[in-house]
């Protein structure tokens, strides 16, 4: 050994023990990494198996209600397609689906906040698709097509919605989109579905920024922005509650929340109510007392809960009552059965909701049929079934009217529609003055009140398109 080496390396025994210690620590880390990798793989396998490996499954449902399900009825009649000359195939994503199948993509929250709505939208589409397929499917240019529903979980965020939308378009090769839930998702998805020339029926509350300027995006379910065009509900509230004068609002600080409160305040203002305050909160907030305290100091007659999810609503109404609030809550589409899992019956009592119910004199027969059919299949009652019921039927109508699945022809067919049937009654397409094209279904709006833990329909407001100025409320 040369002279300098011992100096550099130190004595042999010191090197040996240090080296062994280092080796020991490295081995430990390697072992642990292996353990973690195995655990994470196990989690992935379990999660994939639990989720069924493909489409998200419905969440566990509570026991069925006591309402005996009537015999399944046929869907509302739709117009038969007229014959049209054979169209040429255009090189777009709409013509790439396997022959005989029309794939419909659903982008909604299947996990996390909003999952109860998302899974109900998916289940309703599956149910309606089964019925349409059983009745012979969709006929285009003499050929039969069956609907196939493909879902994507956007976790109620725009970023996930974009990822999921691209996957549905380019990997799953969907022909259409329907039932899009989150407003932020709709705003993000719209340019993508338009760019790929895909007819897109949505169910979110995003307002002008989601529909204006789009070619193939529609709002085909009843949502609050439709009321923006119609102060009918709040005029009815004025008659029903003549001493009530003010409305305040609290909602999430995002597209859904802004759109919902904007339209509530615009409609209420047009009907003669005074807007008494607004609070926006970030999703993930658990304690609402700091927001409710200043909002309720003047005892607003109505407190609109915007588009808040059910868990938030449960806490808000509890804390509002604890703070002494005696007024009336106005919810979004709130199902008493779902809200009842997190909120007490006493706190829910009297809440007005845009969720159609099975009970009440104002209930149209089509709504009962839709919700009963959902109950028969899934063992639970949800207003989403009624709200989403017509979407796929209207898609069928659009495609058969156009006698094509090409987006431009289908859009032209929708534009030419007159009055048509929905589970809520006679409807039509509207919104041309507001959105620049007929992009919004105008159908009767059911309002229910939660009575003794159940939604009961108390009024059916008929829509009137009225040009409402969009005031700045916050």
């Amino acid at each position: 050994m040369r002279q300098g080496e011992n100096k550099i390396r130190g004595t042999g025994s010191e090197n040996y023990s240090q080296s062994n210690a280092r080796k020991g620590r490295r081995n430990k880390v390697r072992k642990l990494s292996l353990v973690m990798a195995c655990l994470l793989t196990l989690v992935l396998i379990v999660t994939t198996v639990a989720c069924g490996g493909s489409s998200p499954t419905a969440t566990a449902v509570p026991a069925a209600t006591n309402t005996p399900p009537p015999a399944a009825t046929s869907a509302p009649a739709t117009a038969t397609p007229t014959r049209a000359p054979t169209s040429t195939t255009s090189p777009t994503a709409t013509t790439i689906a396997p022959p005989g199948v029309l794939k419909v993509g659903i982008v909604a929250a299947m996990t996390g906040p909003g999952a109860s709505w998302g899974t109900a939208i998916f289940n309703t589409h599956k149910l309606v698709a089964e019925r349409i397929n059983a009745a012979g499917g969709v006929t285009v240019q003499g050929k039969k097509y069956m609907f196939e529903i493909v879902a994507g979980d956007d976790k109620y965020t725009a970023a996930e919605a974009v990822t999921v939308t691209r996957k549905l378009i380019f990997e799953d090769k969907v022909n259409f989109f329907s039932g899009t839930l989150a407003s932020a998702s709709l705003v993000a998805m719209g340019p993508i579905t338009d760019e790929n020339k895909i007819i897109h029926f949505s169910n979110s509350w995003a307002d002008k920024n989601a529909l204006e300027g789009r070619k193939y995006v529609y709002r085909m379910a009843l949502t609050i922005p439709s009321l923006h065009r119609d102060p009918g509900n709040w005029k009815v509230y004025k008659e029903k509650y003549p001493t009530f004068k003010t409305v305040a609002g609290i909602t999430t600080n995002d597209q859904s929340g802004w759109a919902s409160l904007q339209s509530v305040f615009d409609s209420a203002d047009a009907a003669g109510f005074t807007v008494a305050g607004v609070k926006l909160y970030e999703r993930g907030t658990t304690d609402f007392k700091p927001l409710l305290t200043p909002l309720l100091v003047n005892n607003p007659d109505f407190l609109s809960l915007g588009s808040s999810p059910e868990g938030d609503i449960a806490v808000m109404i509890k804390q509002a009552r604890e703070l002494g609030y005696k007024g009336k809550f106005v919810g979004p589409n709130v199902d008493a059965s779902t809200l009842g899992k997190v909120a007490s019956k006493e706190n829910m009592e009297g809440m007005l909701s845009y969720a159609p119910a099975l009970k009440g004199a104002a209930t149209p027969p089509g709504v009962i049929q839709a919700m009963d059919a959902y109950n028969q299949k899934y063992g639970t009652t949800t207003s989403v079934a009624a709200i989403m019921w017509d979407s796929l039927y209207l898609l069928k109508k659009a495609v058969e009217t156009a006698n094509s699945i090409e987006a431009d022809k289908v859009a032209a067919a929708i534009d030419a529609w007159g009055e048509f049937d929905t589970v809520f009654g006679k409807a039509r397409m509207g919104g041309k003055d507001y959105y620049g094209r007929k992009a919004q279904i105008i159908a009767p709006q059911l309002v229910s009140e939660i009575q003794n833990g159940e939604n009961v329909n108390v009024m059916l407001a008929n829509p009137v398109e009225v040009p409402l100025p969009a005031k700045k409320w916050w």
Partner: protein
Amino acid sequence: MGGQSISSAAVGSFPPNAAVHKVESIMQLIFQTMANALSLSLTYVLVSMGLTLMFSVMQLINFAHGELFMLGGFGIYVFFHKWGINYIAAFAISVVLVSVVGFIIYRIIFRPLRHDFLAAVLASLGIGMIIQNGAQFLFGQDDVGVRPVVSGVVDIANIRVAVDTLVVASAAASFAIALVLFMKYAKTGKAIRSVAEDREAASLQGVNARAMDATGFIIASALAAAAGALMAPLFFLNPFVGLSPMLKGFIVILLGGMGSIPGALLGSFVLGFIETFGLTYIGLWANIIGFLIVMLLILVRPSGFFGRQVTLH
């Protein structure tokens, strides 16, 4: 609000004695906000105690702490809400079971990785994800509620606090006092502190350092479970509820000083009051202002109010 007699029609205009009325409502708002802030602060105390203990004992950050909180809540949901077991018994069972989970996490992850901070933190993230996914598998992803244990509102001069909030706040204060006394006077608490201060010296004095690590971890897990079990009836549960309390807990221990229990107490109140008053009087900007204040405090005093410098291995 409460017995307030201002009618909704009076918004923007006031009856005679308007000035007195206005001052009364301003004062009422302030006092109600203070009551809200106190109750929020005490929930942060509850959440941050376990994290503080874990860091002070092991100098480790457990990112699965929020999931232990979530499991405590679901324990109450299953045993009390679904199975109808008495709340106290359900609470005890939940805390014991989650403590066992905490011990398992300590044994398979944190003990082998005692000397590798980064690996332990990453591993705790992984464990947290496993627990969260497991909870999704078992309980689904929907929000669920726990029926109230107590009900009613205490109204003192129109300042209203729900009875269940008072119970949680009292429990939080009790746990905090008990923990401080335990760490200061109990033999085991002193042993845990000695290990935290100087592991080798404590070992030379006959303290089983590994046993104290495990004990500290179990107590921290029990505190997380207790927090979740107490707060479940106040809010709602889903497999993702652990994230927010954990983040708030980290902010609290950063403010108060990593490893300082009194510091965590003070940090809880600072955060609770900033958030409550900010949201009440400023609105959404309060979130940004709140974070800015926290960042400023940390910049001015990086070790927190009462913290000590910690060397990460």
